[in-house]
């Protein structure tokens, strides 16, 4: 319980600081959302619209920053994120509700897959450390991990979607499919997700592989592994029950962080594949000085990261009894 309390304290303080940074940052910058709108439309918008926009956005009257801040905190506490300026007059919540499920689906699942593959490969390469296959796999994944992922996305999108037409170019599902929850729709969603997911999985797996490999090698030199060997246990039991089970623990924090950051989306992947998601929305909200949207997304990301951390800690405690019972 005390453990939980401690985490919550950290959670609240961090959230508050981050919220404040979130409030201050965009306001330090010159310009206002109305001007951003004018710039965005490259002359298509009548300059006279600025006046109307300012009234609509509620930025026609200069409010004291402190009052704005209090108002901001109040709004956040009540869960009212206001109306987006760049998607005026859609409420922020609604915009998030369109984007977040896709991000969670695509980036979340890809992250889990990348973590699983990477971890499994990490276990194998550590266990068979001296083998040739380990010697080859590692540099390959180091390379994949060092690729700019948008670049990789561009290449596979051009090759597999445009040239070979094996996969769709854009979107999250096909339009010709009846609405609602049905098999065809699920198939279509999966089909559309393959390329974007591949970019994430292929470029992210290496990191997990290395982390797990190093953890695993550390654990393999631990005495309980040697002891398990002395007990005459089969290799598989030692590899998984004794080594991997312990080696995976340190990876959890990183994995939780990654899961938390899933909310921030995979901006460049979204752009290349025109996949719906929060990344591009965040990007647009920043460029258009859409304070309410930006703030809400930041808040969500932070809450997600903190929550993921929190859950990871609990999970960690579940897997590692030393943490649970407060041993030193």
């Amino acid at each position, binding site marked *: 319980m005390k453990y939980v*309390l401690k985490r919550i304290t950290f959670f609240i303080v961090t959230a508050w600081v981050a919220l404040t940074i979130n409030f201050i940052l965009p306001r330090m910058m010159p310009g206002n959302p109305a001007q951003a709108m004018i710039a965005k439309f490259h002359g298509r918008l009548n300059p006279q619209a600025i006046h109307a926009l300012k009234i609509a956005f509620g930025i026609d009257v200069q409010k004291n920053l402190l009052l704005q801040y209090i108002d901001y905190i109040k709004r956040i506490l009540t869960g009212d994120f206001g109306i987006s300026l760049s998607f005026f007059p859609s409420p922020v919540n609604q915009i998030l509700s369109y984007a977040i499920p896709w991000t969670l689906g695509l980036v979340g699942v890809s992250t889990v897959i990348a973590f699983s593959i990477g971890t499994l490969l990490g276990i194998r390469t550590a266990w068979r450390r001296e083998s040739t296959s380990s010697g080859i796999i590692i540099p390959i994944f180091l390379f994949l991990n060092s690729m700019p992922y948008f670049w990789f996305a561009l290449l596979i999108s051009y090759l597999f979607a445009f040239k070979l037409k094996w996969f769709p170019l854009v979107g999250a599902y096909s339009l010709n499919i009846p609405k609602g929850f049905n098999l065809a729709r699920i198939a279509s969603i999966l089909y559309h997700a393959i390329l974007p997911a591949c970019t994430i999985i292929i470029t992210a797996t290496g990191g997990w592989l290395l982390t797990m490999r190093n953890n695993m090698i550390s654990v393999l030199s631990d005495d309980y592994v040697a002891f398990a060997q002395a007990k005459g246990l089969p290799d598989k039991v030692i590899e998984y029950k004794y080594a991997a089970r312990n080696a995976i623990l340190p990876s959890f924090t990183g994995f939780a962080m990654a899961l938390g950051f899933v909310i921030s989306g995979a901006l460049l992947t979204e752009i290349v594949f025109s996949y719906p998601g929060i990344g591009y929305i965040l990007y647009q909200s920043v460029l258009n000085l859409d304070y309410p949207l930006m703030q809400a997304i930041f808040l969500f990301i932070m809450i997600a990261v903190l929550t993921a951390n929190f859950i990871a800690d609990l999970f960690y405690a579940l897997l590692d009894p030393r943490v649970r019972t407060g041993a030193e």
Partner: protein
Amino acid sequence: MQSDYKVENILNVKGLKKEFKIGSFTNVRTVHAVNGVDLGIGQKEVLGLVGESGSGKTTIARLIAKLYDPTDGKIFLNGKEIPHKMNRKALLNYRKDVQMVFQDPFSSLNPLHKVGYTLSRPLKVHKIVNGNNNIKEKIEELLEECGLTPAKDFTNKYPHELSGGQMQRVGIARALAVNPKLILADEPTSMLDVSIRLDIMNLMLDLKEKNGLSYLFITHDLAGAHYMSDRIAIMYAGFLVEIGSSDDVINKPMHPYTQLLKKATPKPESGLEPEKLDITGEVPDLTKLLPGCQFAPRCPFAKQRCSEEPPKMLQIDENRFVRCFLYKH
């Protein structure tokens, strides 16, 4: 108050107490590492401090070495009280008199620094000698004094090029560099090979004679303590339970814990059949201070009173103290 505080002692500690907080934020527990210890170390005296791991003996050394601030209690050097907080100058002065030798020679030397550099630091910091040549000379002198000959060969060596015993000698030379009056030796031989241990102990004894040093010699080995020390103090769970001259404590242990220690120590010289123990060896939980005697749960002589009321240090004769209700209170 019964204690062996003596003004003429080089060092006295009175009511020394140290608590550690473990865990953080909301889950704080207190470890009672040292609970009101009174000690005195005389001029040119070796005081052996014996106890099992976690009994607080290392903490005492570190408190005296000013690595930790005590929770409570006083430290007197040459009869003068040493404040808890000192400015850098006062602290340097203190460190000039009180030095320390560590348990693990492999870890007590910075692996990246040559022996010469390691030894030059105290000389420079305390301005013992000036000028590079003089420093070099002094380093060689120190090395020779500690049996590392030819000294010139050693100044340019890295710790990993030395054996454990040689490293420990360098550690002793470092402590010696500032001409201290008191050296706190925290289990200086326990990590060394058995064949080397005696050499180190002998070196320390020789240096004591030669330089008029005093030692606080910390060990878990009763036999080693007996070999080295003029007096022996026994610690249990952060308390001093017995103190007396070396021969008295070993030959006529009074506290049941001391008796237990003696029984458990291998001593083939008194017969090859080991003594039977009838006490289980569970270590005390330092986060839970018992109301009575800390040893009561394990003590074969424990009475009702022992678990209710903490025994006080009882003076048996001039040099002998014991903290036990078995003796007249």
